[in-house]
């Protein structure tokens, strides 16, 4: 029988690759990236001032933490994200679940909330600065605004997808409305909510950087803007790396939380 491609071919159509191959491929692409960067720097192909060599960037990253108290900036940034995100979750979770459970509540709040999604959060920065001054409040407010409307809508949509039969089963077992919401709809939708939180946390990092670059003297973004004034490109790149690493770390934490909290989703 004629096969579309031999089983030994590297490019097999829509056949999953082995775990080993995917690890090697994933590692190799980064290796190539850094190799190109190192070679380009060493050969003088790029302006040293604009693109410092990778070893210098990593050296600076270490120096920032070890000698220049950069960890306090990092902690400030993390706490901003976590506080604003916790506030957004505290509002979005109950509201989204109620909107997804009671069409009457959806009818009131959905037209209002979905309209806000079309307003880019950074457009509020000038007015937030006027309202809240220059302290923590405007930054937290920006993150909150940037996340809350999407989060509510996502949670509402997931809640609506809870199968009607589950709700009806609970009702025929004698459940009241509040029992249905708290004991059936909420646990049924919780895994999806954690996924939604994971997606939105990545968005919160984006708004954090905007807030800190535009209007802050502390935090990772502010450090990068300071570095720009002194043409310290290596510090700017170090900041980017740290932000990326933090984003990835929180993403992995959420993935771990999901696995830990919902063991029943794993197939036997």
């Amino acid at each position, binding site marked *: 029988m004629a096969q579309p491609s031999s089983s030994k071919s590297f490019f097999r159509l829509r056949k999953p690759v082995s775990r080993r191959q995917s690890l090697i491929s994933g590692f190799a692409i980064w290796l190539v990236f850094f190799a190109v960067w190192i070679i380009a720097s060493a050969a003088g192909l790029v302006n040293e001032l604009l693109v410092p060599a990778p070893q210098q960037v990593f050296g600076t990253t270490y120096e920032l933490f070890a000698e220049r108290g950069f960890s306090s900036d990092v902690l400030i940034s993390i706490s901003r994200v976590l506080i604003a995100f916790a506030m957004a979750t505290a509002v979005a979770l109950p509201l989204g679940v109620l909107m997804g459970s009671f069409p009457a509540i959806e009818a009131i709040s959905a037209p209002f909330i979905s309209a806000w999604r079309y307003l880019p959060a950074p457009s509020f920065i000038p007015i937030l600065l006027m309202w809240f001054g220059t302290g923590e409040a405007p930054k937290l407010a920006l993150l909150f605004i940037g996340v809350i409307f999407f989060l509510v809508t996502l949670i509402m949509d997931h809640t609506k997808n809870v199968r009607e039969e589950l709700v009806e089963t609970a009702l*025929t077992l004698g459940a009241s409305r509040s029992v249905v919401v708290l004991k059936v709809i909420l646990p049924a939708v919780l895994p999806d909510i954690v996924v939604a939180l994971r997606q939105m946390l990545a968005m919160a990092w984006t708004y954090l950087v905007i807030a800190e670059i535009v209007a802050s003297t502390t935090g990772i973004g502010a450090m990068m803007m300071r570095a720009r004034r002194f043409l310290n490109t290596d510090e700017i790149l170090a900041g980017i790396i740290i932000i990326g690493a933090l984003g990835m770390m929180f993403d992995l934490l959420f993935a771990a939380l999901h696995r830990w909290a919902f063991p029943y989703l794993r197939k036997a």
Partner: protein
Amino acid sequence: MDQNAALEIRHVGKSFDIGREQSLQAVSDVSFKAEKNSICVLLGPSGCGKSTILRMIAGLETPSAGDIVIGGRNFDGPGRDRGMVFQAYTSFDWLTVRCNVEFGMKINGVSRKHRRERAAHFIDLVGLGKFADAYPSQLSGGMRQRVAIARTLANDPEVLLMDEPFGALDAETRWLMQELMVEVADKTNTTMVIVTHDLEEAIFLADKIIFLSSHPGRLKEEIVPAFKQGQRIGEKEQAVKMAGYSELEAHLMRLMREEGRGLE
């Protein structure tokens, strides 16, 4: 008022609004009774309103005409006196089999000790003793449906409603489940109303068959399988061999065919 009836459907009709000022008459003037502790089977072609009738008994839909009486009472909305088993899987995936079966009792304030005992009893009855601590995702389709049945029975409903409960199961599992239902009917005091479009299943399970015709759903014939002589039969192969079985099957087939022609 009939003292022997657990459930009475009186001249019940249901029309659905289907938009643009139009409505669809799904069920029209249906009346029947289910005697206490009996198995009543609703049979009929697809779309004749079987699910709609069952959902009205459960309180999940409101009749547009007539009324439904459970143990002499009217009702408004769903309640624990009318437990329902759906065709689709309804296991609460985040709870173990034991907690699924305890769910109804828990929300109705049954004490913990009593709950444990009853749950264990019904889990054993449906043959899932070894799986009490498993999660539904670790079970096969037939096993999950048994969890749903145990959960509903453990909640001690007066009437057990089942909408094609074994439709998604393979033939062998389906026989076992049918035999299980006969066993459950004998061992508990539950009145059952079971919807099916499987003739064999209807004949095997029914103390009484309510045959419905379609568009709109009306009562066509009420049939008591006379060949059973008032006795339930425990095994499928036994039923098939009995005198009168094939006559009844042929009769039901004829009814089905008449309805099928009506659609053309």
